[in-house]
């Protein structure tokens, strides 16, 4: 019964996309289709999460073709957690986008294309989370990427085409890497089934394992925007419409992180690249946040913090162990919601203040106290201020790090401590960058804007060509409601941190033993 629900997660958005395309000229019907589909996926994902958590993971052989020849869909605790949180975020952002679309009937955003592309994007994200086969994972990636190309270049203005070209070419290269990696892995093992790979990869010579492992990590690293493969992100995300940027920032990089978790736990569980991941995680944090420091534009600033905070997740994956993975999973969930919320709030700021640059915004707190609250809570949350979930997630990661450093035998304890220090510094700089924006945009009086000089603004640089001012007179209620709902979700992550962390720990426990995954897909053992 539960198994029948699994394919629906991908099927519903795809059918919805087809329906939305047919209903291209009827905006209301399109909106209804989109919201109904995503709302039902939220329900299905929640049912799956409860079922998987109580009665164990589910594997479905699509079309009755048994693994390893057919495609398997696997839902374990990690997959279902990712499904639930991504479905919630996608639904809320769709509501926000509907609110925005109703308000400005702009020729720049052809809404008839937006809904189908958005649903296809959702299908790709969900497919990537439940893929039990490396090639199916690739297909999931391609579905979401193709939809994201359309969404990023929506309207085809010069600025978006320019930003889109960088994104598209980088994504194409990463797809080619991924496909080559699949080809070589197939050549070496004769399978693309993740569970079967887990057994067969371990039989390969050490050097071959390392080459395949690094090739796969490179493909996922580009998607997850890990330093030094992250250069494309701050250039391409900020130009898209606010809801699109919010979804991209919240979800797309996390799909890459999810794929890295699977790579490290199931496929290459024997092959150890801890030190590499540790160094990369630390560098991603520091380099990313130093980039954020010099940005005047809040969208670019947030894009850089996004890159930087991916570093925490890579650090958690490098640590491994139940505590490390549990903290990583909790951090991923926290970061998806908070980053999306901040980009949605930025959309509101843009409408309300008519700009996104720290040099042209002032007096927002007086003008709209609600906007102040909607920015302040997620900003503190991202900066890691207690008692919010950002603080809890980072503490969990640091505790896992300290734990592994104390019991460490491989002589990498100093490296772990160094990355923990980098994490603490990154957290403080994030807080600095966001409070600076808060001071300038919210606390500074409207009248002080002309000829204002401050040491805080000494080193910031404007976005290239970013002097477009798009003030609008109205802020639709639906946009505010959607943003508020997501802020409430982030607060809930804090309030229910105990049960959620227990759930993440249970998910991490099944991750640390690849045998669980293998025996799920092959109940009778592997030939």
């Amino acid at each position: 019964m539960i198994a029948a629900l699994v394919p629906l997660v991908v099927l519903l958005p795809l059918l919805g996309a087809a329906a939305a395309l047919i209903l291209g000229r009827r905006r209301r019907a399109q909106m209804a289709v989109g919201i109904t589909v995503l709302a039902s996926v939220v329900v299905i994902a929640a049912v799956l999460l409860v079922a998987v958590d109580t009665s164990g993971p589910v594997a479905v052989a699509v079309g009755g073709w048994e693994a390893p020849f057919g495609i398997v869909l696997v839902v374990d605790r990690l997959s279902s957690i990712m499904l639930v949180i991504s479905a919630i975020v996608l639904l809320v952002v769709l509501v926000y986008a509907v609110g925005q679309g109703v308000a400005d009937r702009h020729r720049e955003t052809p809404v008839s294309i937006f809904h189908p592309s958005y649903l296809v994007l959702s299908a790709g994200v969900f497919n990537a989370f439940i893929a039990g086969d490396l090639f199916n994972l690739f297909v999931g990636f391609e579905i979401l990427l193709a939809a994201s190309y359309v969404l990023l270049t929506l309207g085809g203005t010069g600025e978006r085409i320019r930003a889109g070209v960088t994104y598209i070419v980088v994504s194409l290269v990463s797809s080619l890497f991924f496909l080559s990696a699949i080809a070589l892995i197939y050549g070496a093992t004769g399978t693309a089934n993740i569970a079967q790979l887990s057994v067969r990869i371990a039989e390969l010579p050490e050097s071959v394992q390392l080459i395949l492992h690094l090739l796969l990590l490179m493909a996922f690293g580009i998607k997850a925007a890990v330093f030094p493969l992250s250069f494309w992100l701050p250039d391409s995300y900020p130009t898209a419409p606010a809801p699109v940027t919010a979804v991209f920032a919240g979800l797309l990089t996390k799909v890459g992180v999810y794929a890295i978790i699977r790579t490290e736990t199931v496929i290459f569980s024997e092959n150890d690249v801890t030190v590499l991941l540790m160094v990369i995680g630390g560098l991603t944090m520091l380099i990313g946040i130093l980039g954020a420091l010099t940005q005047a534009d809040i969208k670019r600033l947030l894009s850089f913090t996004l890159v930087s905070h991916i570093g925490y997740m890579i650090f958690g994956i490098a640590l491994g162990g139940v505590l490390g993975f549990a903290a990583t999973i909790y951090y991923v969930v926290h970061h998806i919601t908070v980053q999306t919320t901040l980009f949605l709030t930025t959309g509101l700021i843009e409408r309300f203040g008519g700009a996104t640059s720290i040099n042209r915004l002032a007096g927002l707190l007086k003008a709209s106290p609600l906007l102040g609250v909607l920015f302040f809570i997620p900003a503190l949350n991202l900066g890691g201020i207690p008692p919010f979930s950002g603080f809890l997630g980072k503490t969990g990661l640091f505790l896992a790090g300290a734990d592994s450093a104390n019991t460490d035998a491989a002589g990498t304890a100093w490296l772990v401590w160094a990355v923990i220090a980098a994490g603490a510094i990154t957290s403080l700089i994030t807080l600095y960058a966001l409070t600076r924006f808060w001071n300038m945009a919210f606390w500074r009086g409207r009248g002080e804007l002309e000829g204002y000089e401050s040491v805080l603004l000494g080193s910031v640089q404007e976005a290239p060509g970013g002097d477009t001012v798009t003030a609008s007179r109205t802020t639709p209620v639906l946009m505010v409601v959607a943003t508020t709902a997501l802020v409430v979700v982030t607060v809930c992550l804090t309030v229910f941190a105990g049960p959620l962390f227990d759930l993440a720990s249970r998910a991490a426990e099944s991750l640390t033993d690849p045998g669980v995954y293998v025996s799920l897909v092959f109940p009778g053992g592997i030939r």
Partner: protein
Amino acid sequence: MTASLTLVVLMAVLFGAGISIMLERSLTRVLIGFLLVGNAVNILIYLMSGAPGTAPILGEGLDPDEISDPLPQVFVLTSIVINLGITAFMLALVYRSWWLAQLGEKGDLVDDEAEDLEDAEEAADLIRSSAADDAAIQELLDASDEEVPR
């Protein structure tokens, strides 16, 4: 595992040519490079299926050792379809990019400000001309008023 040397050489040439073209600035060449590398990857997948054999159709009394591996062929087919879609999108993007470069940022869109400006001028003309008419009528009326008492 055996592999055809011709295919290996072809793959290497496609990879090399594709990557060097992809490094060009022009978007059209990037697309051509992507197509070449994409095909090189497809050949790589095909090479990984091992020695060629007879058609992999079960139920014909074939010896499983003699058929060729069907799975990589499925992968190649899927990847060709994906490449086709991406190529169509890229062509649209190239065209759009070229179009914007030819016509500038505004393209063939009517300039909002200029439109407003023209409207304003027309309105001003209308007011001016109607004001002149009004004045003329007033003059006539005044003249007729003056004539009435006689």
